[in-house]
């Protein structure tokens, strides 16, 4: 069991994350302190949540480029509601955010399922549409901290057992995903649909519906992140999380989620996100110019995908009996 874990992608990634933390620690004592690491985790929470949503989509052999726009749109809507009607309870806004995200995810999903349009085209379109709608409803105006109610901003930062609620939400979602992916029919269907769509039909799984569900879940998570982002940074504007969709894909890829579908774990996605999060946080602390960040994450993606691909290469079939035993 342990030996198997040590050989897994997750273990290697975990080692890489730890090595990275220790490396920074040598240059800047205090980085590896628990309180700082908790801060890094809190900072990475949103990336983790989105990476899990993206993972569900990628597992089914699709991709969702509209997650960041979905996030920005829901974030703007809840911020505007909060600014005009501060009386609406935060919990209702969170429910609304998730609901809106779900609807946007379903829109992607239905186009993929019923009209069979390639996911990349669908989400490339909705990526720009969702973001444009933000401008239409907000007129480009920012919603700033002072326009938001205290409760709206306080919720994600409220501390509970030493960790902010934002971190707890991320942990909760990770937990839910462990259950969803590992212990439910839908979660397993993600793997089946992405791993071998043809064979999925033989097991009675609807490929289109499963993909639809993946988009819906990812959308709901993006909606939730919309609220979290906006309240966390206490600001909402058109360009919130611009370009973040690719960070999310990058986290998945680094975490060993195969873009070809059917391969990947919750732990991998979380570690992939943490890897990027640690880099983002470590660079300024370690005194490396932040201008290095982009190149480093790019290189990390390439190395990760090259590394993961080694294991995925198929062996072909084995006909010779001698060869089979020799394996």
């Amino acid at each position, binding site marked *: 069991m342990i030996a198997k874990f040590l050989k897994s992608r997750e273990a290697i990634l975990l080692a890489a994350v730890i090595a990275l933390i220790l490396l920074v620690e040598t240059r*800047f004592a205090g980085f590896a302190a628990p309180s700082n690491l908790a801060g890094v985790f809190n900072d990475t929470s949103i990336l983790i949540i989105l990476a899990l949503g993206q993972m569900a989509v990628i597992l089914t052999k699709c991709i969702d480029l509209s997650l960041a726009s979905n996030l920005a749109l829901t974030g703007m809507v809840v911020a505007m509601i909060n600014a005009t009607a501060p009386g609406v309870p935060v919990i209702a806004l969170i429910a609304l955010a998730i609901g809106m995200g779900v609807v946007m995810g379903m829109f992607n999903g239905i186009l993929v399922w019923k009209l069979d349009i390639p996911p990349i085209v669908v989400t490339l379109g909705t990526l720009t549409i969702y973001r444009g709608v933000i401008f239409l409803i907000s007129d480009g105006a*920012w919603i700033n901290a002072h326009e938001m109610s205290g409760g709206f901003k306080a919720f994600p930062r409220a501390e509970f057992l030493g960790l902010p609620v934002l971190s707890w939400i991320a942990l909760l979602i990770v937990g839910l995903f462990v259950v969803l992916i590992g212990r439910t029919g839908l979660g397993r269907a993600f793997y089946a649909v992405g791993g071998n769509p043809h064979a999925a039909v033989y097991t009675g799984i609807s490929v289109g519906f499963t993909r639809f569900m993946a988009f819906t879940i990812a959308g709901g998570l993006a909606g939730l992140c919309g609220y979290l982002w906006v309240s966390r940074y206490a600001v909402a*504007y058109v360009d919130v*999380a611009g370009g973040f969709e690719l960070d999310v894909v990058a986290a998945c890829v680094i975490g060993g989620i195969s873009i070809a579908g059917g391969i990947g774990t919750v732990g991998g996605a979380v570690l992939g996100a943490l890897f990027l999060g640690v880099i983002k946080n470590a660079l300024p602390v370690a005194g490396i110019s932040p201008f290095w960040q982009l190149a480093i994450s790019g290189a990390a993606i390439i190395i990760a995908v090259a590394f993961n691909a080694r294991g995925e290469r198929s062996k072909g079939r084995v006909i010779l009996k001698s060869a089979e035993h020799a394996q």
Partner: protein
Amino acid sequence: QDDDVRIALVVKSLGNGFFEAANRGAEEAAEEIGNVEIIYTGPTDTTAEGQIEVINSLIAQQVDAIAVSANDPDALVPALKKAMQRGITVISWDSGVAPEGREMHLSPSSHELIGQTIIKLAADELPEGGDVAVLSATSTSTNQNIWIEEMNKVMDQYPDINVVATVYGDDLADKSYREAQGLMQTYPDLDAIIAPTSVGIVAAAQAVADAGKIGEVNVTGLGLPSEMAGAVESGASKSFAIWNPVDLGYATTYLAYNLATDQAEAEPGAEVGMGRMGSATLDDNNEAAMSEPFKYDASNIDEFKSVF
């Protein structure tokens, strides 16, 4: 309608509260003058390419004047030159364009005054001296770099103040927030963060509040009263400064109008009227300063926070 003087106010990006306020000043000036139509426009993200597209469509509409706050001092030059060739009056304001791309430039304040103001704001709260760090805006923008330079020039007046770092938040809320966090982690004894950018200062104040360091770390710099009201109230920021963007938009409109209608000529030494803001005197580079920055603190914030 057709004999209206059409003045395009091109901003760095739409949706920025600062520019919205400038637009209000421009509209105020337009109303005062009477036959002026303001076209308020700009790209949605702060890129030079986006501004060029906007400028091209303004040229096509044959507006009478373009007043631009530039995302890049050089990249806009060819497009603006073309505008001038087609008889359009071009001025820059707030964030300048290289001289060959405009007739004149209006700085909201002089760079010296701003540089001196931001360090003074920090130093006034630190009679014993201490460590301060700078959280700058877009890593590529002209203004912040000059201001920081001017600030450094007067640092010898504050022997006890130490500038320990300069970081860039790229005018993104989340990045600025993270950079501010990083500063506090890297320099546990930090006493103040100077953010000469309206995005950065808000993010830094938020980061300080979230880190529970109100009272320990003072956030100051340039910000908008409406955005900074909360920070002043909570004590994360004791004071900050800004020129009045409403005035800036107002003055810009007057300048553009006067140049476009040939009531004044943009040349060194010329005095161009700015309505209630007096008049601007152009220097050798055809540049002028509007006024000095204005300090906001708990005593006057409530009065201004609803203005801009």
